[in-house]
């Protein structure tokens, strides 16, 4: 394993009491002084700032780039209005999820179309794109940009102190803004279930941007632990845990991210498998899991029926501070996926009763004017 990389905000994390851990090849803050629960609560009730600069920012441009990207993305990329975002995924030929991504439509048919991809998958995604797109398309990894997420019900008010622009955006829309004299690309998006924004900024201006936001006194720095509990309560998938190449979007309950026309017409890598799974129905389903009691049920725990039949596995689990209780998600075989189904999780040899639950655990509060 090579030495983990550091984002341009590394020194700022240390100066603010960040406890650094190795995550997907990056040295990132797991938490700061207040701790994950306080950081989580700050995001649900105020505004929390996350450094997500470890994520990959990839731009694709060239002749007819948007339409040609549809060969590897099941989103309607060519129909995306400029500055509109969609959740999508790169699939392999078997319909397995190579990565889940956010795609932003470019200014015209030739792009650039922007993909934000998971940190640990960036290299694999670049290889995948290069392999399946012709050489006349340019694929650039924009590691000259930093990315920070400002999330929570007061995030819009915080940015409005600097620039009225971001507040006018709806969920999954992009625009520009000037925050404390620094030009940023803003999207109204995030991965916490709350209203919020992601700010893309030049690497050499990121520290000044974050310091300016922190100086409002209305923003709490939050680390990976809070980010994980927030997305889990919001029922959002983490690639490598809840999604991987052995899972198609059909089992994962992500078919909503494939527009009906693309489901019908196909034309993307993995389309045949996705169509077949849609026609036959999934053999297993991603579901929420609520443990009875307070003992957390974590990734890897086997799920059984009362009679001992193994029917699934937990893929993410931990403590949900908003619920004040453990929460988890996982996959169970069809027939055991209805909310209210009672199962047993094997937690290091101890049986923990659990109930299958609808997702999300905490309702989304995205801004849809």
């Amino acid at each position: 394993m090579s030495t983990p990389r550091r984002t341009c905000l590394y020194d700022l994390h240390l100066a603010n009491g960040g406890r650094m851990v190795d995550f997907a090849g990056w040295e990132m803050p797991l938490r700061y002084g207040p701790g994950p629960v306080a950081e989580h609560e700050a995001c649900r009730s105020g505004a929390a700032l996350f450094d997500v600069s470890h994520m990959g920012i990839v731009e694709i441009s060239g002749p007819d780039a948007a339409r040609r990207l549809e060969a590897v993305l099941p989103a309607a990329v060519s129909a995306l209005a400029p500055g509109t975002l969609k959740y999508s995924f790169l699939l392999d030929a078997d319909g397995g999820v190579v990565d889940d991504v956010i795609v932003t439509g470019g200014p015209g048919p030739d792009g650039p179309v922007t993909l934000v991809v998971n940190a640990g998958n960036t290299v694999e995604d670049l290889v995948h794109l290069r392999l399946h797109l012709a050489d006349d398309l340019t694929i650039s990894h924009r590691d000259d940009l930093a990315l920070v997420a400002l999330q929570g019900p007061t995030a819009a008010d915080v940015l409005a102190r600097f620039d009225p622009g971001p507040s006018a955006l709806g969920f999954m829309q992009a625009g520009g803004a000037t925050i404390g004299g620094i030009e940023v690309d803003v999207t109204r998006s995030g991965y916490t279930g709350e209203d919020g924004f992601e700010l893309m900024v030049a690497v050499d201006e990121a520290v000044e941007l974050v310091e300016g936001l922190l100086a409002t006194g209305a923003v709490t720095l939050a680390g990976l632990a809070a980010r994980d509990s927030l997305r889990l309560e919001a029922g959002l998938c983490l690639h490598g845990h809840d999604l991987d190449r052995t899972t198609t979007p059909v089992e994962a309950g992500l078919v909503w991210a494939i527009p009906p026309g693309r489901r019908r017409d196909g034309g993307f890598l993995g389309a045949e498998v996705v169509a077949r799974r849609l026609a036959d129905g999934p053999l297993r389903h991603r579901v929420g899991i609520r443990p009875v009691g307070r003992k957390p049920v974590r990734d890897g725990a086997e799920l059984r029926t009362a009679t001992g039949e193994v029917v699934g596995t937990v893929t993410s689990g931990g403590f949900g501070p908003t619920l004040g209780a453990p929460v988890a998600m996982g996959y169970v075989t069809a027939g055991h996926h209805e909310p209210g189904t009672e199962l047993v999780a094997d937690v290091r040899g101890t049986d923990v009763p659990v109930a299958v639950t609808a997702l999300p655990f905490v309702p989304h509060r995205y801004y849809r004017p």
Partner: protein
Amino acid sequence: MEFPADLRYSSDHEWARRDGDRVVVGITDYAQDALGDVVYVELPAIGTATRSGSAFSEIESTKSVSDLYAPVDGRIVEVNEALTDAPELLNEDPYGRGWICVIAVEDPASLGASLDALLDAAAYRALVEG
């Protein structure tokens, strides 16, 4: 960080307070800080035998599961039931309301020696502060 002088400490980050022939056990300020928010404490069953240096229960923070090691030989005679609904007491008051259990020793005559084998506050501070 606070390491009270009247306690003994294990290198596994538990503290032990002598109370006659019994020993009250908890985790240190350093341990609670390193773990972060404690969200679950597996309270051992009354009567569980403990061996010095061996795991006898688990503590879970938001991101990890950690073993709890016994500082002395004996058996569990009391557990802090308040931790069932308020595991955060381990973070808030690790030497007080966040106590975990009481161990009764099998051989009271050797208890002094067992505790002497643990670290005093100064030695423990040196261990964790390097």
